[in-house]
């Protein structure tokens, strides 16, 4: 009884409120905020004062003028980003090799010996040590050093306050394609690692622009794909010109692929904002924080924990089962030949239409956890199908060669042409994100739909581009 009376009284409040709402109209929210700010102004006017005169030399303003000026803005931005990338690529070379030699050349034989001593069946040892362990070792040694260099540097620039200025400068371009200027930052982050780039889109607080940034992040050529590009460009494009220009031309080819990626990310952003993402909310806001002296140690610590270890951890989790799969398909034989060879033969029929081959397609399928292990997988599968036994470490075991010429001879033996090389470079840019990134996209968007779109869209683009290039190439070269 009491309850009923209470309820009706509550309903009375609500119905009274909705009646009054019609009287006061829709400007209430504005008026409330206005009143709050009137109070805020009054209070802060009472308690805030400046000591002495306002400083004549305003550091922030001067830096701002320089980094956003028509003449100096672009060069500074370009130099800083180029320096970060250069340092990442050059600086990670040595530690990567060190880690690889430690994990692969030192620890791996020890594990094998130990397995022999305890009498582990060959099959189990193969799956665990040659499969799971080696793939994990590769992922760690090629991913860890570049991320440990790239992320702290990026975080330092962020802490200092420079990155928001980059977004400010680039916004005009991104506005035209329906995106947010901050996408320039998440894209740059993607050059380090797409998974980290996807996480970085959290800085974009408008839902539509954030989705655009997530879906297009894969068009940034990530760290794991640079070595593939450089190697293939050296072998197949550098060799087309006299050796003096070889280095220059192959470098130009790699840069062209990266630029194509940036261009496509803009085109796709535009397309998305005009079609499937039309229905998502969009609100631009960008605050330019004051410059603050970065705190080096703190930054090193947090960027190592939050970004490097976090992303690496996810990659390792995916690398282990993939390593097992790689070993298994190369070692389980059906009708005399391994599963891998069956797959390759079958894929070959279709892959040749798009100017690739069965090895490449299978490598992209089973090396999904990280782009870093695509080349080792391709090499392993190539010698497996060719039956070469004097290079590599055995079937199902990933390996890499220090000398590009040795790689070239294996690939040529595998039937690769210049067209295959170019198509591989394009496909390396335009294919599904690695499983770590796919998982991260799912975590960030919480939506299967957007995860599928971000996964399938680049593959379709890659297949289409390779297909048409191949036909045109063949027609023009008369084969």
């Amino acid at each position, binding site marked *: 009884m009491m309850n009923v009376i209470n309820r009706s009284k509550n309903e009375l409040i609500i119905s009274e409120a909705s009646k009054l709402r019609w009287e006061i*109209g829709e400007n209430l929210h504005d008026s409330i*905020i*206005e009143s709050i700010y009137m109070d805020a102004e009054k209070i802060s006017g009472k308690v805030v004062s400046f000591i002495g005169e306002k400083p004549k030399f305003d550091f922030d303003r001067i830096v*701002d003028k320089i980094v956003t000026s028509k003449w100096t803005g672009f060069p500074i931005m370009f130099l800083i980003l180029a320096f970060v990338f250069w340092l990442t690529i050059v600086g990670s070379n040595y530690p990567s090799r060190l880690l690889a030699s430690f994990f692969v050349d030192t620890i791996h034989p020890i594990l094998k010996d130990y397995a022999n001593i305890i009498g582990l069946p060959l099959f189990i040892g193969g799956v665990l040590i040659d499969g799971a362990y080696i793939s994990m070792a590769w992922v760690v040694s090629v991913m860890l050093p570049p991320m440990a260099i790239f992320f702290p540097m990026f975080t330092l620039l962020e802490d200092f306050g420079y990155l928001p200025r980059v977004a400010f*400068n680039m916004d005009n371009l991104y506005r035209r394609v329906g995106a947010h200027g901050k996408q320039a930052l998440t894209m740059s982050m993607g050059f380090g690692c797409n998974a980290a780039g996807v996480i970085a889109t959290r800085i974009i607080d408008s839902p*539509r622009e954030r989705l655009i940034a997530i879906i297009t992040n894969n068009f940034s050529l990530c760290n794991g794909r640079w070595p593939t590009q450089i190697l293939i460009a050296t072998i197949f494009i550098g060799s087309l010109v006299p050796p003096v220009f070889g280095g220059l031309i192959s470098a130009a080819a790699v840069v062209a692929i990266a630029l194509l990626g940036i261009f496509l990310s803009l085109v796709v952003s535009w397309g998305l*904002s005009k079609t499937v993402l039309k229905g998502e*909310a969009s609100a631009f806001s960008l605050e330019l924080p004051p410059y603050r002296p970065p705190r080096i140690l703190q930054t090193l610590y947090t960027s190592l924990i939050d970004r490097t270890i976090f992303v690496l951890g996810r990659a390792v989790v995916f690398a282990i089962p993939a390593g097992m799969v790689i070993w298994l398909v190369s070692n389980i034989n059906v009708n005399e030949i391994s599963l891998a060879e069956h797959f390759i033969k079958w894929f070959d029929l279709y892959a040749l239409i798009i100017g690739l081959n069965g090895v490449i397609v299978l490598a992209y399928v089973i090396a999904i956890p990280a782009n870093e292990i695509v080349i080792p997988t391709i090499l392993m599968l190539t010698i497996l199908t060719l039956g070469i036994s004097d290079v590599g470490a055995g079937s199902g075991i990933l390996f890499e060669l220090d000398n590009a010429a040795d790689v070239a001879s294996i690939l040529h033996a595998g039937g690769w042409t210049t067209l295959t090389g170019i198509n591989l470079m394009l496909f390396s840019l335009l294919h599904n994100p690695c499983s770590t990134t796919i998982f991260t996209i799912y975590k960030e968007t919480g939506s299967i739909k957007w995860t599928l779109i971000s996964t399938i869209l680049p593959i379709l683009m890659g297949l289409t581009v390779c297909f048409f290039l191949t036909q045109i190439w063949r027609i023009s070269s008369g084969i």
Partner: protein
Amino acid sequence: MEPLITLIVGIGVLVVIILIAAPEKGLWSRWAKQKTQREKVLVEDALKHLYDCEYNNIDCTLNSISGNLSISGDQASKLISKLEELGLIVRKNGKIILTNEGRLYALRIIRTHRLWEKYLADNTSVNETDWHNLAELKEHELSNDEVNKLAARLGNPLQDPHGDPIPSESGEIPKVKYFDLSQLSVGKFGRIYHIEDEPGEVFAQINAQGLYPGMQVRVLEKSNTRIKFEYEGEECVLAPVLASNVHVIPLEDNEEITKDFENLSSISVGEEVVVVALSKALRGQQRRRMLDFGIVPGTLIKAQLKSLSGDPTAYEVRGTTIALRKNQSDKIYIKRKEKV
């Protein structure tokens, strides 16, 4: 395989995919649109039309129904029998009258329609010329529960983006007195209350002039062929036919008049000005973000920095630096400070 043939086949496949999947004009979306043309839609559209007639005190006829829904007279009379069967209408002396139930049903459809328009305006980047058409489809799809959830999410709005009142869950709708813009006398100020969104071509023309509900207008000149008025410092000429689709409420004296204020985008770097109002065209999240940053009437704002490509511009607001795009600063009205 012959590459030329493969190439042609490839192009063929691409063309077919585009034909099927193209947005709006593709076969897929046409098929999806077709699918919604069912009886339920006809019933609901007829109810809406009948409610419209009732609201405007016009008599509805079989002809007007068949015209409005673009169906044959035969179909229309079948539809009417169906409505009568359902107890949504009664026929009295040849007139078609909504029953209470029918009216509530119609109001629910209208509520859905207007809420969806509000949603599109506030929470999506869909163009204003598409709002009405999309809502025409959506109004037949949402369940009562979904509609209430949508209303809750939007903060139970009172008006749709055209200024039409949104009926409440129980079907209450207030009557507001308004005039056509053509009825406003010369020299008087009025606030746009509502812009009729049908027919679509007329709405598109009015929309192209940049008129929004909530905008203040003043009629400068009136003749049989044209009505000249000014809004937010700009002059505009409309044919009387168009002007009669713009509904205004005469301004009371105490409402602040925002006629000759400039836009924030017009100030140059280093200049400091006072915000006087935010345009009604600044909606939803966009508007709330501006308010959160402290951009409210009375706020001092100073242009500080232009991006290297000229847009956006960074402004100093309450001690913080905030970048605004030109299409945002266009919607903030300012007053230059008087020189002391």
